[in-house]
């Protein structure tokens, strides 16, 4: 009961904060001045002048997409170089050597695509330079890329006829300057107060109470943790992520991080309503996402607190921090898989199969239950296009959303984007379940082994980044395959969605009449949820039946395998 009250309070605070942040963001992306402008606007202007950017120069979808690709392509090359060369570069007190090519490839893609899948362990395989100049930089700009694309797509859906999608460079700069940096500063400072280290000194050598010596790795942790949560990145400073007492020392730090995971994605829903000049539209999308999130959370909570029926020993505490218990671990697990974050405060591998099922579905529907920053919103708009197209016909008009007709071009692009999830997840996982080079990565056989494969591929394609702990991701096969699929999961959605936005923005908007398909009421919320579940989740039903469902069914029947 205490857990549920806590969840309710959490959701209420999150909704209020998201609403307020959306008000701030709508001003930021429209180029209006805000509280921080006196300090930051000169920085912004100087940056534009130096880089030769004209922020008011709106781009068409192709130019916008090209800018995204160019920026992320350069980001990938820079990060790859740093990771490979970290052994000879400065800020390397632990004398860590350069990363092998396949792992560097995987890691660079992982951070550029806002996935933050970690096939390495941070404290032993990354120098401080790699952490700060490499990963933390990408933590900011990959999140900003998602936000910029999100805003551009919203402009396509809601903007005046013939307007462009905005300027990528300006959107990205503003995302970093006015949203991510200030929030990260606040959160980072709060985390430091809670005891998260922020230092450039090497590992501490301490003598424990028993008199034995122990090496405690540390570093600039607070800064990276702050942005890893706010930017739905998820890549931890330490290998065990936010289960590590230096990354997440207290209950308060735990709640703050959980809140930060969902904050910007929630704000994007309300931002959509504001930019559409019809806040009901944003609330409907928020309601649909919220319903799915709460349903998933409650299932995980129930499964974890009920525990393993075979053991009959109270809540399932395997793989959990005693500090957090089943309730807070369930909340984190729901948030991190729903929001494409991927950081963990408990080992997902050890959750009950039913919880694993929810985590898998959260990712497999394409990270649209709040999802990544910006990415969740353009992802759900993909489902909105499909839902409106399917059911919109039933009111006797050719389907339209926000007054714009959904026609052949939009449907083609939406299906193209939509195909990437089953193709990447099912195709990749099927190969992995067949190829001997891939099978060595599995810790276990049987349904749980299948869940491990499935989790890895769902996480990569959904750009989530979390993993079932038993899965060995550092083999050349997995680093390469997962690296490529992270690219697919990111750009095979971004490009079609930008194209849809570009196609919609040139259409005239039909006025709202009594004959207009309503996209703001409870009925539409229900329709959207059903579309996500039937089109998104049902695709994975057969393989889920062989993985977590078979496992859970066996447990319920009293067999432990």
């Amino acid at each position, binding site marked *: 009961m205490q857990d549920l009250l806590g969840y309710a309070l959490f959701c209420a605070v999150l909704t209020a904060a998201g609403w307020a942040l959306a008000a701030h963001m709508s001003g930021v992306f429209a180029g209006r001045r805000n509280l921080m402008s006196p300090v930051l606007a000169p920085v912004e202007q100087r940056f534009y002048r130096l880089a030769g950017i004209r922020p008011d120069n709106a781009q068409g979808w192709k130019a916008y997409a090209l800018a995204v690709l160019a920026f992320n392509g350069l980001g990938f090359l820079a990060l790859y170089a740093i990771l490979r060369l970290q052994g000879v570069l400065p800020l390397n007190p632990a004398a860590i050597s350069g990363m092998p090519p396949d792992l560097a490839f995987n890691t660079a893609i992982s951070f550029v695509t806002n996935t933050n899948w970690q096939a390495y362990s941070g404290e032993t395989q990354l120098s401080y330079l790699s952490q700060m100049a490499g990963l933390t930089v990408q933590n900011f700009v990959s999140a900003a890329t998602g936000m910029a694309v999100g805003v551009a797509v919203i402009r396509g859906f809601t903007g005046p006829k013939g307007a462009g999608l905005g300027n990528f460079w300006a959107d990205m700069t503003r995302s970093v300057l006015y949203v991510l940096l200030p929030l990260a500063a606040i959160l980072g400072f709060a985390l430091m107060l809670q005891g998260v280290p922020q230092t450039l000194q090497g590992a501490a050598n301490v003598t424990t109470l028993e008199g034995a010596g122990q090496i405690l790795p540390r570093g600039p942790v607070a800064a990276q943790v702050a942005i890893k949560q706010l930017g739905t990145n998820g890549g931890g400073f330490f290998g065990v992520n936010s289960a590590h007492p230096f990354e997440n020392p207290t209950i308060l730090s735990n709640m703050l991080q959980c809140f930060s995971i969902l904050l910007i994605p929630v704000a994007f829903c309300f931002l959509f309503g504001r930019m559409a000049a019809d806040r009901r539209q944003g609330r409907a999308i928020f309601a649909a996402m919220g319903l799915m999130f709460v349903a998933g959370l409650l299932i995980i909570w129930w499964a974890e607190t009920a525990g393993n029926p075979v053991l009959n020993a109270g809540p399932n505490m395997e793989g959990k921090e005693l500090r957090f218990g089943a309730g807070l671990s369930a909340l984190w697990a729901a948030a991190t898989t729903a929001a494409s974050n991927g950081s963990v405060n408990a080992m997902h591998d050890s959750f009950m199969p039913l919880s694993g099922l929810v985590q898998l579905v959260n990712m497999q529907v394409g990270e649209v239950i709040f999802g990544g920053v910006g990415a969740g919103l353009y992802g759900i708009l993909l489902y909105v296009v*499909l839902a409106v*197209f*399917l*059911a919109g*016909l*039933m*009111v*006797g*008009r*050719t389907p339209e959303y926000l*007054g714009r007709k*959904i*026609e*052949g071009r*939009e*449907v*083609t692009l939406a*299906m*193209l984007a*939509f*195909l990437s999830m*089953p*193709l990447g997840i*099912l*195709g990749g*996982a*099927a*190969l992995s*379940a067949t190829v001997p080079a891939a099978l060595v990565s599995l810790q276990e056989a*049987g*349904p749980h*082994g*299948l869940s491990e494969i499935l989790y890895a591929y769902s996480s990569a394609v959904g750009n989530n980044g979390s993993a079932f702990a038993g899965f060995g991701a550092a083999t050349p096969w997995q680093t390469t395959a997962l690296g490529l699929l992270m690219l697919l999961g990111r750009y095979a959605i971004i490009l079609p969605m930008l194209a849809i936005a570009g196609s919609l923005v040139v259409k*005239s908007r*039909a*006025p709202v*009449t*009594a*004959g*207009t*398909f309503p996209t703001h009421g409870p*009925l539409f919320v229900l*329709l959207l949820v059903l579309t996500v579940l*039937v*089109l998104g989740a*049902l*695709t994975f*039903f*057969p*393989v889920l*039946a*062989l993985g977590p*469902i*078979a496992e*859970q*069914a*066996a447990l*319920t*029947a009293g*067999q432990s395998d």
Partner: protein
Amino acid sequence: MSIPSTTRSGLYPAALKTAFVKLHPRALIRNAVICVTAVTAALTTILALRDLMTGAPGWGVTLQIAFWLWVCVIFANFAEALAEGRGKARADSLRATKAETMVKLLASEDSPEPSLVPSATLRAGQLVRVDAGDLIPTDAEVIRGVASVDESAITGESAPVIRESGGDRSSVTGGTRIVSDSLILRIVAEPGKSFLDRMIAMVEGAERQKTPNEIALNILLCGLTLIFLIVTVTLDPFARYSGIVIPVVTLAALFVTLIPTTIGGLLSAIGIAGMDRLVRANVIAKSGRAVEAAGDVDTLLLDKTGTITFGNRMADAFLPAQGVAERDLVHAACLASLADETPEGKSIVDLARRMQPELAAAEAGGQPVLFSAETRLSGVDLPGRTLRKGAVDAVERFVGHRLDAALRARVDEIARSGGTPLLVAEGDRLLGAIHLKDVVKPGVRERFAELRAMGIRTVMITGDNPLTAAAIAAEAGVDDFLAEATPEMKLEYIRREQAGGRLVAMCGDGSNDAPALAQADVGVAMNSGTPAAKEAANLIDLDSDPTKLIEVVLVGKQLLISRGALTTFSIANDVAKYFAILPAIFVAAYPGLGVLNVMGLSSPQSAILAAVIFNALIIVAMIPLALRGVKYAPGSAAALLRRNLTIYGLGGLIVPFLGIKAIDMAVSALGLA
């Protein structure tokens, strides 16, 4: 024109035969989902035959699955053939009117001696003469003469219509017959391109092109098919990893039941049936696109005359002058109108008789004075009485003095209310006024309220002055009106609406309507209209009934709703199919997965067979819905969505659970699996 019932009962065997003809790859390839189903069926058949020859266990079930997959394809073809068959019956009867005849070709308009040539050789621009009894060979324009023409072959209307040179009644259609007098015609259609040819092609569906929305829906269905292909193909390695070997036939069955065969099979039938509904309403669509656009219309421009009002002014009240008994006025007006055959005249007599039943016996007598353009009066000269009625100024001139102030006030009141005042006089004495009124058709107001609830604005187009127009607009309940409308104003109005993102529909007949008809998103031309109007429009109403515009909108909406409803139904069906087939495949390896068998199906084999049979039968069950169209009750989009989402969404989830369970019981009772 209705199709004889004997033809209709013959439709089913013919359609069934065509369903098999359509198994030809060239026909199948036109429908991706059904083509994929056919390929899967062929593959399954080969496997079934192999099992049969090797005597592998379970060959019986495999054979049955193959059979039902073929049934699925045949049913989809049957639906399409049935829809096309309805059009063919009408096309045949149209073709019968396209008889080859000899026509009298003229070298010039005044050449006395025609030469006889076969009708098939006629080219546009040539001149021909047709006399009473001749068939009009092809579409043409009357350049000389007046004649009555029997157009029943095209319109089904038996009363002949007048066709004359000049003006808006100068066009004649091939296949109609001239019944009196003779005409000189200039041919306007090249061979094979006449209206009749187009109509035959249209109703046969031969020239049917997929409409934009249909194409978009097709892309979606192909995408879903591809996704389910990925699902079934990858299921094999996942199952092998789990130690399960799934027979290929089972995967084939899962694949076909998951892909949207219901809507895939019925999609073209829905489109053809929609066009057929228009044809039966006697409207010819020049493209399917127009029918779809009709569903999207936001603004309807309606001509006042004939659509909103009866088109003739009718007597509404008698207003006696001071010192005149109402009875005397009514009596005089009735007598003055008995010989008047115009609708106005008749309406005066009708009203008078209703008010004073004893006038029923009154008969025309004395010397009737007919209306002439010069006097603008009509009436009767009876022994000792001179009764006249007419426009105010004409009657004033007749009696030789002006109205008194009291009567003037009443006359002004009539004009202000949008009516037309007539004065009645006996000798030099003014008896009073008759209020002639544009009578709004009964039910029109309710119809417009319905349209408003659907989000459609109605705009009345009239040549009346703004005062009159406003009065009638208020009475009819239209949302807006365009008074003293000229063709330019109509065009301007349409452009303005379109600039606001609205889709506009209008109807028209005159050549001066052509620009507006072309500009409108949905333009309905009257068949009686000029060739220019018919060319500019995208729909032609054979009955020349302006009210038809509303029917067209409803047909368009119904077409889109049927498509959406069946798509939703088809996709919702998948949930139950998963729950039927997945436990059947996996339960041997993971007995725990028996919990997914929520329907309690008797055995894995019967579960798979039941799902496949359900998948085939549901197509047949939905054919009537596809051909008839989903029932459409006008209402707001929100109400429609709630209703249709409940019936086809929720129904689509539940029905297959019940259906598959029932079929499973039958299958196991019959020992089929």
